[in-house]
């Protein structure tokens, strides 16, 4: 929505985009396929990519034909992202990437993975140097994708093994050695939007629908309290969005939205679960029961994905001058 017209975008404001996103999420619309490409990969290419990359890739994202996944975490590198070991080595034809990425959401259905690699040996005095990003075509030889099902059995995460995968120079994203700065910028986009507090909103709506006639006092109180928390967080999120629009980098506020938002998502699940105890004994509608069960099982993931809340609070602490 916000991208330049020449790349298939509509040059709408980020507020307009925010409005569309939150309406989609509030309605529980399926948004996963285009999510990463639209939210962070595309903007990263807009910010750091070459003109050729922008011309070739962005229109395909805009037309809904091209999906991206995130190649950052590894088996030994989760919160400590700077410790990644996937290596990119230059040879005559381009770059050879070898290593294993993990927790790659939707890799099994994606066309590209923006992959964080070491291009120079670790400098212990500055672990953030020597990292670079590459736009990897997942149909390339040497790419092997293995699903890692969630505890619900659903496909979502993947392990992506790269075995001497060839990536041409034209698919280096940004500058070699500038990977850390690029990743940090990308993660700010990832942290601050309404998806960080609306995952369980459809459950809240369903609870409002099923809370009984009349609803229990506990249920009514829960509806009010949870709504108030959503109202508050949405205001912060809107403010972060406006700051991003002004080309600011509100990393502390964005981290706060995610920390508070994801805990609120869990809190919503818990409060509804409890309130239901005072409701109908037969468990109410089948749809509500299913949503409730799914929410309970997915809840631990909210505060883990996209950076654990402990790491995010560390970012806040740094921003407050404590570190």
């Amino acid at each position, binding site marked *: 929505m916000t991208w330049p017209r020449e790349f298939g975008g509509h040059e709408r404001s980020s507020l307009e985009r925010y409005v569309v996103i939150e309406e989609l999420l509030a309605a529980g619309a399926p948004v996963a396929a285009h999510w990463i490409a639209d939210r962070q990969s595309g903007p990263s290419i807009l910010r750091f990519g070459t003109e050729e990359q922008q011309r070739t890739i962005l229109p395909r994202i805009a037309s809904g034909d091209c999906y991206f996944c995130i190649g950052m975490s590894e088996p030994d590198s989760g919160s400590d992202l700077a410790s990644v070991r996937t290596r990119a080595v230059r040879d005559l034809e381009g770059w050879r990437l070898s290593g294993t990425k993990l927790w790659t959401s939707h890799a099994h259905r994606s066309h590209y993975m923006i992959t964080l690699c070491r291009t120079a040996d670790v400098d212990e005095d500055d672990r953030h140097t020597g990292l670079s990003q590459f736009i990897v075509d997942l149909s390339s030889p040497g790419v092997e994708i293995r699903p890692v099902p969630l505890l619900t059995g659903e496909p979502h995460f993947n392990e992506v093994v790269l075995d001497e995968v060839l990536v041409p120079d034209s698919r280096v994203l940004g500058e070699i050695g500038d990977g850390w700065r690029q990743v940090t910028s990308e993660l700010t986009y990832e942290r601050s939007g309404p998806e960080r507090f609306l995952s369980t909103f459809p459950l*809240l709506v369903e609870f409002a629908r099923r809370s009984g006639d009349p609803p229990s006092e506990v249920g009514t*109180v829960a509806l009010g309290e949870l709504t*108030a928390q959503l109202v*508050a967080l949405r*205001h912060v999120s809107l403010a972060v969005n406006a700051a991003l629009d002004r080309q600011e980098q509100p990393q502390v506020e964005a981290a706060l939205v995610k920390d508070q938002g994801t805990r609120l998502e869990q809190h919503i699940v818990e409060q509804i679960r409890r309130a239901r105890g005072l409701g109908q004994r037969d468990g109410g509608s089948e749809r509500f029961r299913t949503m409730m069960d799914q929410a309970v099982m997915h809840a631990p993931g909210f505060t883990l994905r996209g950076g654990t809340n402990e790491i995010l609070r560390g970012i806040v*602490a740094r921003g407050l001058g404590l570190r």
Partner: protein
Amino acid sequence: MSGTERELLVETVEGLLHGAGFGDPPTEGAAQQAWKLFAEYGLTLVGVPEDRNGSGGTFEDASAVVRVVAAEAGPGAFAEALLVAQPFQMRTGWVPSDAPVTFADGTWRLDRDSAGFTLSGHARRVPWARVAERIVMPASDDAGQRYLVEVPTSELDVVHGTNVADEPRDDVAAEGVILRDGRVREIDDRHPAADVEMWGARARSVQISGALGAVLEMTVRYAGERVQFGRPIARFQAVQQHIAALAGEVVAARAAVSAAVTDDGEIDPVSTAAAKIRAGIAASNAAALAHQVHGAIGFTQEHRLHRLTRRLWSWREEFGNELYWSRRLGEWIVERGADGLWPLITSTSRSVVP
């Protein structure tokens, strides 16, 4: 008021309070002194238009003054006057004076006979009644007609009381008091006084948001200064996590309160309820986290922290605590139905989205 003018206003209020160095507990004398000082600078009439004897500025500007007073743990009924009593007076067509005023949410009956109006009734825990020269209150007569009444405090019975922060919360009563020097006006449901609890809840939310900011600042400073195990305690992750959580509470609460504070003071019930709920939750969490980081010294009378946390503990309870407003908001949601929930949430950003 422009951004720079607002900054200047805030600095002026801070400067006055720092200079005066009001201690604790907030005594009658201190409150009177503070009021006089503010009145000299025209600060008690921020939010009142200049053509009505005021200093100009919007309700939002008045809230900025109240927020700073709260952050400085200042004494006196500034919230009650600037954010409730004076707006009520103005909407009734009365010109506010620069004498201390407060409002009383209670049960008041007005009778009328040949001699004039007679007031009977009581209100419990009226903020700063003993310092106010006049008290504004909603009243009704036997036929159910509503009124706004303004009475000199000297015509009422005042029994002293306090809240947990030692702020005056006095019981005020009248038994067939013939109003001599009072003002009376008939009002209808659309007059703000019909919703006095909401105006009070919003005022407390503004105060809480001010105190929260000060608590965060104090806690960050303490953690940077207190050295244990050879380094400032701010270097420990456990402490960092607490302070980050505290910051989250402050930011969320301030955003909710900001949205409830409109330029013209008009109440949006959903925003007001959300503000009081979120501010109340934040008050509890922030006070607990701040005390935990401050350790034993923060638990003493001599340290300044309690001047803020006791106010947080008091203000979160007044004019309905978070459960009270959660239930009210919940009832409105149930009335509207599940499909009305999302529109209700998005309706709160009408005033903030450019």
